[in-house]
């Protein structure tokens, strides 16, 4: 009995030792040398794999950071400055502070709820609906309301407002990864600087139709009249293709354009109630060198 046990132990032991040696050499031969720094950087990242940085996922972003050795042109939008600082520490490089950004839906929510010219009952996908026709409210540029942006968001930061049929961004949750902006077939969503005290002014319309036509389509459409551009003290507003666009790097949020706009297409958010005349905030400091990831031209 003991002899049998001994034989078994011995045989298995010898086989085990043999394979240990083989495995050792195989492991040496096929060794993959990976910078331990990659693991450390990946550890710091949020791990949402949102793809907002343009890489396949957080791991790929970490590899890119380590390979490059600095953070030039690389930014994890969900992590923001805190994560950038940590990565910079690990890599031993400096990091420039980026202006925090937020996704902005540039379609006026007031109209879409009531005005339905048709009843769409096809596939619930904006990308598909966009290929079929103008959409339920008849605006060939406006929000289609099927929620491709909501499906694209990894951070639960954008939701459909059932009353208006347009998406609403939760500013606290939005990490400005840009996934919703990419998912929107009509390029309505733009990443804009959050602004001081989260106060922002933007043109809430992307309609490029001629003025009269645009007004027929939507009461709050930008008609490209140019009044905002004339009144702007910072020359932050440009008009192209019958559409006004406010450069958020130049805008000082004086809100002169908001009152000037005849169709109320320009919106201000997070300003105190207009009981007294708001004091004009000081001009924003020169924008950070970090490239603005979503100028509308780049998106379209």
């Amino acid at each position: 009995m003991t002899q049998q046990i001994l034989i078994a132990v011995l045989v298995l032991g010898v086989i085990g030792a043999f394979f240990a040696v083989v495995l050792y050499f195989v492991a040496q031969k096929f060794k993959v040398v990976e910078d331990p720094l990659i693991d450390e950087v990946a550890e710091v990242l949020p791990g949402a794999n949102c793809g907002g940085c343009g890489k396949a996922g957080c791991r790929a972003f970490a590899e890119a950071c380590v390979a490059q050795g600095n953070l030039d042109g690389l930014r994890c939008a969900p992590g923001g400055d805190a994560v950038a600082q940590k990565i910079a520490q690990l890599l031993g490089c400096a990091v420039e502070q980026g202006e925090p950004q937020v996704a902005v839906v540039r379609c006026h929510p007031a109209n879409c709820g009531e005005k339905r010219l048709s009843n769409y009952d096809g596939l619930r996908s904006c990308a598909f609906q966009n290929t079929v026709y103008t959409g339920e409210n008849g605006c060939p540029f406006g929000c289609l309301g099927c929620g491709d942006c909501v499906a694209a968001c990894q951070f639960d930061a954008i939701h459909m407002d059932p009353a208006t049929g347009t998406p609403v961004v939760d500013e606290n949750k939005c990490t400005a990864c840009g996934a919703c902006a990419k998912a929107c077939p009509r390029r309505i969503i733009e990443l804009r600087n959050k602004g001081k005290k989260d106060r922002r002014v933007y043109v809430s319309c992307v309609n490029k139709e001629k003025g009269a036509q645009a007004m027929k389509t939507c009461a709050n459409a930008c008609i490209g009249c140019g009044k905002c551009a004339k009144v702007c003290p910072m020359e932050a507003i440009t008009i192209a293709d019958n559409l006004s666009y406010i450069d958020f790097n130049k805008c000082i949020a004086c809100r002169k354009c908001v009152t000037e706009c005849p169709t109320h297409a320009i919106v201000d958010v997070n300003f105190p109630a207009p009981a007294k005349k708001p004091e004009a905030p000081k001009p924003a400091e020169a924008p950070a060198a970090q490239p603005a990831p979503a100028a509308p031209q780049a998106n379209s």
Partner: protein
Amino acid sequence: MKTFKMGGVHPEENKISNDAAIEVMPVPQQMVVLMNQHLGAPATPVVQKGDKVKVGQLIGEAQAFMCANVHSPVSGTVLKVDTCKDAFGLTKPAVYIKVEGDEWMETIDRTPDIKRECTLEPKEIVAKLKEMGIVGLGGATFPAHIKYSIPEGKKAEYLIINAAECEPYLTSDYRVMMEHAEEVCIGVSILRKALGVPNAYIGIESNKTLAIQKMQDMAKQFEGIIVEPLKVKYPQGAEKQLINAVTGRKVPSGKLPIDVGCVVSNLGTAFSVYEAIQKNKPLIENILTVTGKKLPSQHNYVVRIGTTYNDIIKHSIGELPATTGKVISGGTMMGKAVVNLDAPTVKGNSSVLVMDEGEARRSPETACIRCGKCMHACPMGLEPYLFSSLVKNGRIEEAKEHNILDCIECGCCFFSCPANKPLTDEIRLGKNRVRAMMAAKK
């Protein structure tokens, strides 16, 4: 009786406007003519504000390769050259004309005599098709002069005329056969001459017995026209299915009908070819069915292309019933819902179908039960349920490998699905994604 081999469905036929003879719709007061009424690039307007135009005068010239001429369907003064929203709300270039009288070009033969002899050479025929702005009237509005210019190294053996009219509700082709059988046969002979093929086959579904009879009688007087009765099955009128039904040949994946020696044209096209070649009349009129179960009367009309949907509805039935759910241009299977009734009709429109709220709505979608009905229904032998999940999960590459681009968007999968899944919509989205992916790779 012949039919295509794979898949197919049999929707309720609803040919309720069969017995309504073709009436002439009066010319509207103002006319908006869209510049892209065909597949491909829009035509370039060649008139300016203030110009006087006559019926049949060229107002949009085909300058790109894939393009067709556009002619004025009315006489009057050009108000402006601008843009106009089409039936789906999309902005398209257009010419606005104020209608004054009804003065036709002198070149157009408006006598009712039927002209049988065509002395033109094949090349001249194709050139004239281009000049007259003839496009395929089966729905795709493919410019006819391109279809009938056979590329080098390829040879046409069959000319197949699609008179299947497999879409439910539509009866315009049927009425043309009943009333203009001789003209159609002349048109077919002209097309046969243009291609230089010995025989032309006219495929007619067997539910149109009178039309088959009429065409067979007429075809006896012509050389090389064979009327082929086909078993009723949708989508018999689809190009590849019709080729399979008539010749037994199969168009391989990614190939065109000419690769198997076939050219397919619609019956309506043959009729407009007759008018263009023998009567010098450009494509300025459509034959339209106005139909719907809840309508007080059913009609078939010949309308000037560019008459708005509202004008057609107003003249034919007064106003839409209060319970109208959708107005559809085309049949129930492949037609598109019209959102802008002020929009002008375009070449290739074959019907104004008014559907009741109840029948127009889709039933709610439920989960796929893997019954495989969509596979059996697919006339192209594809797997719609698979595309549905691949597209949803962004596996576009795989969808391409499974030949998603072969889909002809006939709607059989959605029609047959017991779970009401919008399979055709998903596949169309997938096809767009695949094309975008391929374009990005280039």
